[in-house]
């Protein structure tokens, strides 16, 4: 099963169209393996993106270099998945 240890989900806040375009550029960089949970839309509309561990540093540097604000929505995707799986198994065990 695919493992998401160290993957983070960033919530990106874009202030204007230029910043939306910058984030869209990121989307095209296939080697970063980004998974947009909420894609780039319009200024004011949050963008959520899952970033694999190897790409985190590069993405954060890129966003900060362009003055694009972000917060970490999910610190570690795998830990949420583990919780979800435990909950399912607990139910099945019962």
């Amino acid at each position, binding site marked *: *099963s*695919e493992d*998401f240890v160290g993957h983070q*989900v960033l*919530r990106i806040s874009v202030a204007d169209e230029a910043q939306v375009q910058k984030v869209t550029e990121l989307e095209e960089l*296939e080697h970063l393996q980004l*998974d*947009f*949970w*909420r*894609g*780039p*839309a*319009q200024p004011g*509309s*949050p963008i*959520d993106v*899952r970033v694999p561990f190897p790409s985190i540093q590069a993405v954060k540097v890129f966003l900060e270099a362009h003055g694009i604000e972000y917060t970490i*929505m*999910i610190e570690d*995707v795998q830990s*949420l*998945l583990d*919780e*979800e799986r435990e*909950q*399912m198994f607990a*139910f099945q065990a019962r």
Partner: protein
Amino acid sequence: AASTDTFNYATYHTLEEIYGFMDLLVAEHPQLVSKLQIGNTYEGRPIYVLKFSTGGNNRPAIWIDTGIHSREWVTQASGVWFAKKITQDYGQDPAFTSILDNMDIFLEIVTNPDGFAFTHSKNRLWRKTRSITAGSSCVGVDPNRNWDAGFGLAGASSNPCSETYHGKFANSEVEVKSIVDFVKNHGNIKAFISIHSYSQLLLYPYGYTTESAADQAELDQLAESAVKALSSLYGTKFKYGSIIKAIYRASGGTIDWTYNQGIKYSYTFELRDTGRYGFLLPASQIIPTAQETWLALQTIMEHTLNHPY
């Protein structure tokens, strides 16, 4: 589960458990519920639709589907809860009883079975179908970009590795083609509601063009009423509007095609959440999410019943 009364609606389930639930529900309510197979998936799994009918022949109908994007687990889980709710409310709730006395409801709970099975076995965050694209090592097509409505225009990707890959041609995905054939053969569907998550939105056509839908004013007004009903339960805030205005340009989408087929009340829901868990919504939120969504669905269904066309 021994019955749909002991089935646990507050946890996520596998494909087999959901299909087992469907059989239980049909067995418990043979006069009201039947299970139709509308096709087989790319990997050969059956595609089931539950039909809720109190009689008549080819009555005007309401279509609800969940789980077309397989990782949006709260939607399939809500679909299971809706199915049980329908059997509980018919004959009890006068407004809902009136809907089912005059219309049929079709509910497709697992609209992307291959993708859903894959989220349980290999990759919890899988979104697309599992079809193989000749010439590419990447798998799957976005089933919400594969419909014959603005197919291939801006708002989808031609890259098989993209999460929004539209596929080689419209309806290339059998999971989509099965619904297309069903809708065309039935010919009397009056409302089509496709349920996604997340971001708390109620959307109506169009996504592939900035042109307004002919019924935009009515769709907007009904959306406002529906989100008000939804919000009345737990205060969950939804925005509403056309796809292209409320979020972004998206081509080849489900409800653009259904609307162009003449199904006026075509809506897409984006359920919880606002940005804490995303697709990994805790199971403890399944029932509240389904309950609030049901209020919005009832608003749309009542409007459809009261505004025949």
